[in-house]
């Protein structure tokens, strides 16, 4: 018979996982609205305006529409894989957040209980995140293959080739950070950047900014955002791997994509921008979680900003950047970081 504290901890894990999952499930609602609004203002138009004040109810209208859409399964498709693929894209995107820390412990006033602001601080945290986000490729390639449509197949193949090519660059950038923190645990990585802004990995000169540059380009390509959104290259591939998807299954792919964007923003903050550490000491009592959220929000905005500012790369250029620029640069940078860690 397990004792009460174990049972309590177990219940707490379920509650925390439930809260995180609900937030992630609802997150695309504000994010799609924000993205369309930002797109509108960048292109000097209003964006969503008619459904509710400032178009605020637009995401709900979209949600209802996706819920009521007829579910089309092409008659040539592999029925089982066609249904499983969106789940395979979505579930790992959620599972990534089991390892992501949002802050240290907070004391709940009145109850005298210390609540940890993460589900689990596993000692291989960052490796687990890389593995789980890598699983998302299965959803893409199976979705493309199971549709049995030429556009889907080509889109799926292109996406997976792009994602695995840039996965290497992202792994190298993560290794650079691990070399600076000497730990794979995300909480330890943030603790190693404690203090003021000068301790953040981005300012570990000269290699820190290079790692950040590699990480940013690699992860932008991995989550298929502009300028690397080749999988959704409308001009040549229709809608890429999800050409044949409609309704809720299509929504799952979109959900996975938005969660991936949030994951990458969170990782950029944790790995390079000091996580929940304040940039400089302020006499005001600002909770660390505020800094964390503000930094993440900035990165989400950055991705949307880039999307409506830059044009798309061609496929051969994309592969060249991944293999001929980022990979050699990472190899050299690993050695440079190693030398700095040993002799500085």
């Amino acid at each position: 018979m397990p004792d009460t504290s174990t049972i309590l901890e177990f219940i707490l894990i379920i509650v925390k996982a439930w809260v995180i999952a609900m937030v992630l499930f609802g997150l695309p609602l504000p994010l799609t609205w924000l993205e369309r609004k930002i797109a509108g203002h960048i292109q000097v138009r209003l964006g969503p305006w008619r459904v509710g004040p400032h178009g605020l109810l637009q995401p709900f209208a979209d949600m209802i529409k996706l819920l009521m859409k007829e579910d089309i399964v092409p008659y040539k498709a592999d029925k089982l894989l066609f249904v499983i693929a969106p789940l395979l894209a979505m579930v790992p995107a959620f599972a990534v957040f089991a390892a992501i820390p949002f802050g240290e412990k907070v004391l709940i006033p009145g109850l005298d209980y210390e609540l940890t602001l993460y589900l689990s601080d596993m000692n291989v945290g960052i490796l687990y995140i890389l593995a789980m986000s890598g699983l998302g490729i299965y959803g893409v390639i199976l979705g493309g293959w199971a549709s049995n449509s030429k556009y889907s197949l080509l889109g799926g193949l292109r996406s997976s080739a792009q994602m695995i090519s840039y996965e290497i660059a992202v792994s190298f950038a993560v290794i650079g950070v691990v070399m600076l923190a000497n730990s794979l645990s995300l909480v330890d990585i943030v603790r190693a950047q404690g203090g003021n802004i000068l301790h953040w990995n981005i300012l570990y000169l000269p290699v820190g900014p290079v790692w950040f540059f590699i990480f940013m380009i690699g992860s932008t390509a991995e989550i298929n955002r502009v300028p690397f959104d080749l999988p959704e290259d409308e001009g040549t591939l229709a809608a890429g791997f999800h050409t044949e998807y409609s309704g809720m299954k299509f929504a799952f792919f979109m959900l996975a994509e938005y969660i991936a964007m949030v994951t990458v923003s969170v990782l950029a903050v944790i790995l390079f921008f000091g996580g929940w550490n304040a940039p400089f000491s302020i006499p005001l009592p600002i909770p660390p979680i505020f800094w964390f959220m503000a930094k993440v929000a900035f990165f989400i905005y950055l991705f949307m900003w880039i999307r409506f500012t830059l044009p798309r790369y061609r496929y051969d250029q994309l592969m060249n950047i991944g293999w001929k620029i980022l990979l050699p640069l990472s190899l050299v940078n690993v050695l440079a970081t190693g030398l700095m860690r040993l002799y500085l």
Partner: protein
Amino acid sequence: MLFSYLPILVMIGIATVMAIGALFMSFVFRPSNPYREKLSPWECGMEPVGDANTGHFRVHFFIIAILFIVFDVETLFLFPWAVILSEKALSAFIFVEMVVFIAILAVGLIYAWVKGALEWV
């Protein structure tokens, strides 16, 4: 130990339940009116020709996949190395070892490059 890995299972379970719940909701509300033309794969409005999943695609994707395995395994070897690098007793020795390892892989990359495995035409 249990409590640092149990959350993964809990999270996967919750996400799966939510996904299946959403699919069921949509199953309850959505219309269903399939006919053959609607269910045919999209090919710009033309009659679809042949099957797509017969495995006819460029072999280049396969080469990229093999290169990925080589370099991704390399990064996996680098992870434990990166964690213990700053332990002073051994560090110079393991650093030199890793330089040799990276050099061998760099030769592999150069070989693939020269052979044209990285070119997309």
